[in-house]
């Protein structure tokens, strides 16, 4: 138990912080309940996927500046294809968009491996490329979205055979994040690929000498990130019903959440749970500020200051850890 606490201390602290913030929210607005949680979860949804995508590549010792642009591509290709398509066809379209995401990520990874150009430069270039691609697919915010897909993130969860009172308070959007991450990441983390991702991020030379294929592992990590970014893009379309060709502010938010989530930007250290919790913490702070009717511009300052202070404290802690 103490070992668990030691290893996951950061994540536990975040969970406690989140719980504290929820209580604070309830105090600020006594009426805060299902609808509040629901809008929080829906606001957090694209940030959560962007952060998860970023986390996977950061664990592998890389960084992907093109996450938000890949989300835009996924969002517009989904919206464009679903416009006028039947509800049943939409399922196939979702699958296709996810494949597109996987392919975009794999292209990012393959370019990094093949060109030997630093990841920051490659993904900066691909930021332009995917952003341009999204604009080529859709010039403006338009397109459509299947009804069942939109329903997937609306309201609380209701399961057959389970009393509504038990699950209703759980926003579907949060459940969707949990399910997707469980399906995508848990099998990977348990497999040799997961070990390889951590190994490559932690010490590439030692990983190579242990027989890990650096190139294949990196490409796989970026492909997973692309897949998660595609989920993020679809969630944008699900939330608005249309495609969004202009990339949103997900890059800085994802990096901040990754750091706040206890993942070392040098790679190899941390997990997926911490960053996801961090996303919810950051979104909830913003929500509370809005509830307190703080000027939205001032909210931006406060939000930015919190993020900066958090990464500063994280940096200090990491430096102290290294100094030991």
């Amino acid at each position: 138990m103490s070992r668990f606490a030691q290893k996951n201390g950061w994540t536990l602290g975040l969970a406690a912080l989140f719980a504290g913030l929820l209580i604070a929210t309830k105090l600020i607005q006594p009426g805060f309940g299902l609808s509040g949680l629901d809008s929080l979860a829906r606001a957090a949804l694209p940030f959560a996927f962007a952060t998860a995508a970023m986390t996977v590549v950061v664990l592998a010792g890389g960084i992907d500046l093109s996450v938000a642009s890949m989300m835009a591509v996924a969002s517009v290709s989904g919206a464009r294809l679903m416009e006028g398509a039947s509800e049943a066809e939409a399922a196939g379209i979702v699958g296709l968009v996810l494949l597109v995401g996987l392919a975009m990520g794999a292209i990012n990874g393959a370019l990094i491996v093949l060109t030997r150009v630093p990841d920051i430069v490659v993904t900066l270039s691909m930021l332009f490329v995917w952003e341009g691609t999204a604009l080529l697919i859709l010039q403006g915010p338009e397109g459509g979205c299947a009804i069942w897909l939109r329903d997937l993130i609306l309201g609380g969860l209701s399961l057959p055979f389970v009393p509504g009172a038990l699950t209703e308070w759980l926003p579907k959007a949060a459940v969707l994040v949990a399910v997707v991450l469980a399906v995508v990441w848990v099998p990977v983390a348990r497999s040799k690929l997961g070990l390889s991702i951590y190994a490559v991020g932690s010490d590439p030379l030692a990983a190579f000498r242990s027989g890990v294929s650096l190139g294949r592992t990196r490409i796989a990590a970026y492909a997973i990130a692309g897949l998660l970014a595609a989920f993020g893009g679809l969630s944008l379309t699900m939330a608005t019903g249309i495609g969004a060709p202009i990339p949103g502010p997900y890059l800085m938010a994802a990096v901040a959440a990754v750091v706040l989530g206890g993942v070392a930007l040098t790679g190899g250290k941390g997990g997926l749970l911490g960053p996801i919790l961090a996303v919810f913490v950051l979104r909830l702070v913003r929500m509370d500020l809005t509830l307190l009717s703080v000027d939205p511009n001032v909210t931006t300052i406060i939000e930015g200051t919190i993020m900066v202070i958090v990464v500063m404290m994280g940096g200090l802690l990491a430096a102290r850890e290294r100094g030991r």
Partner: protein
Amino acid sequence: MSKEPSRLSRLMSDHPLIPLAALLLVLIVALELLRPGIVNERWIANTIKFAIPLAMLAACQTLTMLTGGIDLSAGVAATVVAFVMATQVPILGVPGAIAAALIPAILMGLLNGFGIAICRVHPLIMTLGTGLIATGFLQVYQRFVIASGSVVPDSLAWLGTGRTLGLPNSLLLFVPFAALILYGQRRTGFGRLLYALGSNEAAARLSGVRAWQVYFTLYALSGVIAGITGLLYVGLIKAPSLSLMNPVLLPSVAAAVVGGTSIFGGRGGYGGTILGALILTVLGTLLTLVQIPEGARGVFFGAIILAVTAIYVRLTNQT
């Protein structure tokens, strides 16, 4: 690999500017072939005029990249200085407004320096965060000065858009600026220390370098350079806005990268960056000329940065 690249790679690592100059020439020739007669005195002056703010903002990226950093707040710093200056001119007069406007840029640089040197936050994140906070402040500030209006001083407009003997006046600012940076990076202790910190900070520390002093100075300097760039740019655009220089930020990173400065630090220099800024500007003209859609422009822009860097890495075998 055959013998050819190895000879070429030696040439590249000894004279990294040659292939960049060659690429610039190729682009200009391509432009002339596409639209014969376009490359004239006027076009050259125009290209230089738009390349200069890019090259100056890219100086922030080059200097910070030499230490293994980056300054993503440079675009915001430039915007803040330009906006504050333009809105303060009616109140403080031109010199007072310029002096007052540079203060926030220096403060941003010092905040960056604090986060990077003392808290050991990665520069990419620290400067992104500083930029975010500064943008928030700028928006709040705007509401207080919205009534008093803004003025772009004639002197800056002259510097930004005017021409003398066919050459843009901004060269009067840029030539001494570039000379100072080119001299400073190799021939001053401070410049050498940028390379040293980017190459091996622990080793620099053991040699007696107090890294925080360098980082504070560097990022404050980067803020000042960004601010001066903002002043020049608002003179060129003549319309201060809350996102004035933001579109130039990523190209400024690209200019430094295309110019051969290693994003991991310790290698490169401002000479390449100037060529990189010219290359990107000419490329922009080329893309406008062939009238490709906005989206394809982005794709092409990204692909060219990647391709140039990849060729560079291949030839000099550096990472």
